């Protein structure tokens, strides 16, 4: 490439450029616009009265004192929502959920009443004045006790239903049993295997805890019959459809507006009772109504994650070559099945649990149960149930390595899917698009001097010190997804992009996804810049306003680049195709005589004869077009991906444990990620830093604990672990590039990989520190307290 060509290409700041984030100029100046910044004339505030009990009957609700508080306008209860049939709502898990508690409460801090007042202070005073008389009932907190014969029935409203959308139920507290793979074939391999290992492995209940809590401003215009909802949603279009289904308002008269969002991580996918209550309140009063969650409400009631009680089993030969996998999980879904999942995949993508390994036989099963805890299991910085699955396989391969006495890196090499096997279809039915696992692992081991670390560890062990080396070689599954496999409420999980090129060659692109910090305004513009040869600086990106953007399923499950980014590339290609026809017309040659050159079409063999995209954009708005061609340079693409994408990585974590306090210090964390084509390396690095930090949080401290009565024990940031820069380890990042064969530009998702792959890496490091003492597993979170208890039970920290 000539110097001149290179200069033109660099000017575009397209794919591969570490372009600075376009969003940050407003964020660092405090000029972002979040939902709580929305102030509309006459706006009322809603405050929620919440249950102090995890399970109780509501004997009565007395609003009279609350209604006497000056400024309180109304108090809504389930009885008030009943006439409009909005006291219950459908969930994303084919169940129903009480919007406001209907005769019973099913979890602590459940929504019981919605107090409307002229300001948020008065609303809080009004909420305190609502008197609710409860009759407490025994609570089911431990999912392992939910299916006992004498367990209290949690959902009396559906006790007589033998099915809640996902097959037969075996107990009033049972939701579904889902399975995949060849059970008989797997059992047979296990029966005759040289080596088998089994471990009980918990992914505890955690919460994504975005910096901005959930909230909305609902504004119903009675005259026009139009509802506008400003809200913190990762999926505004799906929300619009749900609101239309719930309210009976035509979808064309509903507008969902997502402004800036202060982090989502899955917490902002579902529709919550607070949104519905605010919408109803606005419809009833005819004025805008704002509802904003407190931190405690956020951690306690909206969008938890995990709570998967797993059992992992592997069968192998004596060399550690895996012959079969059998994984199961008991899933605690809380009081309503509001788990975010595709309709046909009630346990999400759990069947990715064969990981990066060539495993001939596999079977997995998930049993979901109700408990007296908050509903709404979301995918916390991962695709649906993928962290749970990857955690199991990445833990179990370590357990197997210890059993057969093979090094933890070597056992991975022996079992990896080989490069020549791609596309590789797993025993559980997923077709991994591309991968190069051996190269990635070897690069990381060399970078950290793995042999040196093992030698150091041996010396430390001899002197009684605890040092652990964790490895994780994960494969993620992201980019939901092929509509034949994935839908939500019947709507396929395609995504969309609409591009309009202006006469002067700048462009605006609108997409069905929704950035919550991912940097879409920066990276989508880079994809389009490279495709169209227009500078990314002049390409505006808009998302989140359903009146403007084309329909899409939103941003979650690392689907924006795999699906939205693909739609952007393909919409741009439609424009480029038209542009080529215009160029041929202008240059008076045939299309076949043209070739693309960074930002222009030129005549083959005569590079001076060329038309830049900017020139073509202007021409597209003149009369000088080929006969019969429409004016303008626009295109829309609705992209239905043929497959998921399968990013992967190899991580190494080194920890030193203070056996006297239980403190675990992460000395080193080296993360190699392969997300295919890299659109913006700087943003990728930022995503990996963020994902690793959230992985560190989950592995080392996060949990939503309860007592036996279902009372929250740690639901503020005093207890819930949100690491600061002081606690966060230093991250070293690296990469390989193995493009996705089916994605238009070869890209895969990346933001979730470090979370999914990072969590088992931390646990593997902590367990490895104790491996020489016969320890095969320790459950998260690895707090100092728990690690100290472990040291004590092993008798290694006597003074």
């Amino acid at each position: 490439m000539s110097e001149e060509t290179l200069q033109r290409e660099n000017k575009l700041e397209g794919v591969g450029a570490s372009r600075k984030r376009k969003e940050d100029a407003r964020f660092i100046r405090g000029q972002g616009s979040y939902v709580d910044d929305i102030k509309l004339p006459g706006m009322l505030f809603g405050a929620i009265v919440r249950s102090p009990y995890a399970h109780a009957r509501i004997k009565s609700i007395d609003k009279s004192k609350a209604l006497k508080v000056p400024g309180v306008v109304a108090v809504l209860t389930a009885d008030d929502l009943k006439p409009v049939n909005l006291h219950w709502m459908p969930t994303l898990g084919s169940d129903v959920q009480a919007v406001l508690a209907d005769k019973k409460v099913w979890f602590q801090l459940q929504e019981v009443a919605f107090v409307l007042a002229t300001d948020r202070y008065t609303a809080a005073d009004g909420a305190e004045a609502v008197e609710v008389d409860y009759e407490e009932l025994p609570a089911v907190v431990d999912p392992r006790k939910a299916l006992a014969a004498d367990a209290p029935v949690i959902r009396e409203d559906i006790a007589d239903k033998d099915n809640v959308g996902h097959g037969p139920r075996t107990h009033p507290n049972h939701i579904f049993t889902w399975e995949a793979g060849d059970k008989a074939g797997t059992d047979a391999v296990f029966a005759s295997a040289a080596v088998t290992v089994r471990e009980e492995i918990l992914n505890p209940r955690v919460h994504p805890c975005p910096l901005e809590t959930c909230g909305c401003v609902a504004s119903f215009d009675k005259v026009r019959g139009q509802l506008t909802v400003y809200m913190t949603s990762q999926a505004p279009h799906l929300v619009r459809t749900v609101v239309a289904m719930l309210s009976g308002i035509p979808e064309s008269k509903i507008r969902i507006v997502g402004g800036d969002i202060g982090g989502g991580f899955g917490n902002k996918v579902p529709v919550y009772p607070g949104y519905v209550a605010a919408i109803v309140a606005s419809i009833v009063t005819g004025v805008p109504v704002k509802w904003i969650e407190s931190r405690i409400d956020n951690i306690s009631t909206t969008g938890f994650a995990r709570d998967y009680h797993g059992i992992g089993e592997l069968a192998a030969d004596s060399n550690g070559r895996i012959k079969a996998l059998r994984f199961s999980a008991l899933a605690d879904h809380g009081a309503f099945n509001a788990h975010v999942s595709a309709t046909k995949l009630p346990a999400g993508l759990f069947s990715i649990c064969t990981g990066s390994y060539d495993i001939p036989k596999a079977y997995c099963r998930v049993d979901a149960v109700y408990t007296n805890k908050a509903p709404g299991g979301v995918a916390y910085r991962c695709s649906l149930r993928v962290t749970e699955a990857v955690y199991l396989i990445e833990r179990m391969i370590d357990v197997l390595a210890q059993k057969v006495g093979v090094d933890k890196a070597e056992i991975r090499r022996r079992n990896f899917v080989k490069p020549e096997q791609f596309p590789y279809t797993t025993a559980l039915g997923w077709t991994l698009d591309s991968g190069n696992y051996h190269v990635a692992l070897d690069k990381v081991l060399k970078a950290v001097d793995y042999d040196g670390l093992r030698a150091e560890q041996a010396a430390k062990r001899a002197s009684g010190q605890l040092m652990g080396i964790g490895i994780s070689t994960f494969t993620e599954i992201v980019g939901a997804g092929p509509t034949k496999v994935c839908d939500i409420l019947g709507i396929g999980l395609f995504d969309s992009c609409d591009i309009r090129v202006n006469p002067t060659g700048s462009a605006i692109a609108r997409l069905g996804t929704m950035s919550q910090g991912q940097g879409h305004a920066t990276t989508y513009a880079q994809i389009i810049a490279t495709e169209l040869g227009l500078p990314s600086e002049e390409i505006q990106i808009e998302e989140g306003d359903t009146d403007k953007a084309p329909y899409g399923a939103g941003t979650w499950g690392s689907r924006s680049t795999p699906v939205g980014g693909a739609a952007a590339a393909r919409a741009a290609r439609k424009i480029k195709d038209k542009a080529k026809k215009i160029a041929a017309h202008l240059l008076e040659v045939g299309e076949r005589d043209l070739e693309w050159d960074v930002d222009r079409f030129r005549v083959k063999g005569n590079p001076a004869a060329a038309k830049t995209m900017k020139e073509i954009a202007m021409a597209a708005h003149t009369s000088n077009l080929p006969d019969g061609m429409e004016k303008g340079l626009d295109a829309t693409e609705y992209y239905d991906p043929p497959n998921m994408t399968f990013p992967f990585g190899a991580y190494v974590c080194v920890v030193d444990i203070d056996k006297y306090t239980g403190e675990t210090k992460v000395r080193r964390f080296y993360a190699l990620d392969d997300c295919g084509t890299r659109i913006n390396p700087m943003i990728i690095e930022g995503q990996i830093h963020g994902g690793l930090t959230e992985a560190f949080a989950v592995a080392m401290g996060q949990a939503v604990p309860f007592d036996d009565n279902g009372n929250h024990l740690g639901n503020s940031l005093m207890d819930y672990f949100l690491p600061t820069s002081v606690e966060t380890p230093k991250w070293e990042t690296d990469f390989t590039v193995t493009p996705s064969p089916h994605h238009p530009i070869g890209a895969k998702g990346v933001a979730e990989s470090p979370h999914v792959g990072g969590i088992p890496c931390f646990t593997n490091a902590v367990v490895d520190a104790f491996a020489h003492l016969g320890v095969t597993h320790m459950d998260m979170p690895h707090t100092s307290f728990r690690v100290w208890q472990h040291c004590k039970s092993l008798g290694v920290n006597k003074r």
Partner: protein
Amino acid sequence: MIPRPFEYHAPQTLPDALGLLRQFGDEAKLLAGGHSLLPMMKLRFAQPGHLIDLGGIAELKGIRQDGNSLLIGAMTTENEIIWSQLLQTKCPLLVEGARQISDPQVRYKGTIGGDIAHGDPGNDHPALMLALAASFALRGAGGERVVPADGFFIGTYETAMKPDEIMTQVRIPVPAQGAGYCYAKLKRKTGDFAAAAAAVVLHLKGGRVQEVRIALTNVGPTPLRATEAEALLRGNRPDDAIILQAARLAMSVCAPSADQRGDAEYKTAMAGEMTIRALTTARQRAA
């Protein structure tokens, strides 16, 4: 997370503040840095009708030396303590302790007087005050009295302060030249209270312990002096074996309650571990 309605008062002089306190009695709470009181009000655990902000009273601020005493205004912030050249030189234990309080933002607002007067055993200054043999100047309707830290802390959120009194000053005898010191604190994360912490001041003479004070944070309803441990050490060479014995004696006075930081057994063990570490560091630092 929204408090009950309350009246806010911002007196500019101590007599005005005392007048307001007398006027509103039980209805009033004094506002210092607010980092304990305001969260309690937002959770509606505390519901004062009147908040008397001491932030505007100049005489409650400042750090100076008067003879053999360090005088610290009760409304002096943690960061002002950390930045004080005088304290860095004369009382490095207080600086080391203040640096471990909560997080940088809180240290801009939180005050030494508020930290002490709140009576929360999780706060760090109470144990530091016990270790430093500090005393507190309290001003009430009947004038000023000076109360030693020993005996000041009666129970959780309960101190020897009377409802009509305002803490005006913290008085610390300047530690002897060459005294060893250490505040060893174990916490889960930045911003957290201690799972357990130990404050130590250690004077050595001829390699033997001439005087030692050990105080513990967050392992009982009040900060705790480990007096038996101190007695064991006095007159002896502070070798590892006796430090271990002292730590065991310190553990014997602990009565922590379980929470998400750990159970009573863990917190007690950590009080011992922090005592070992604080004594060991103090021994290194002692001249």
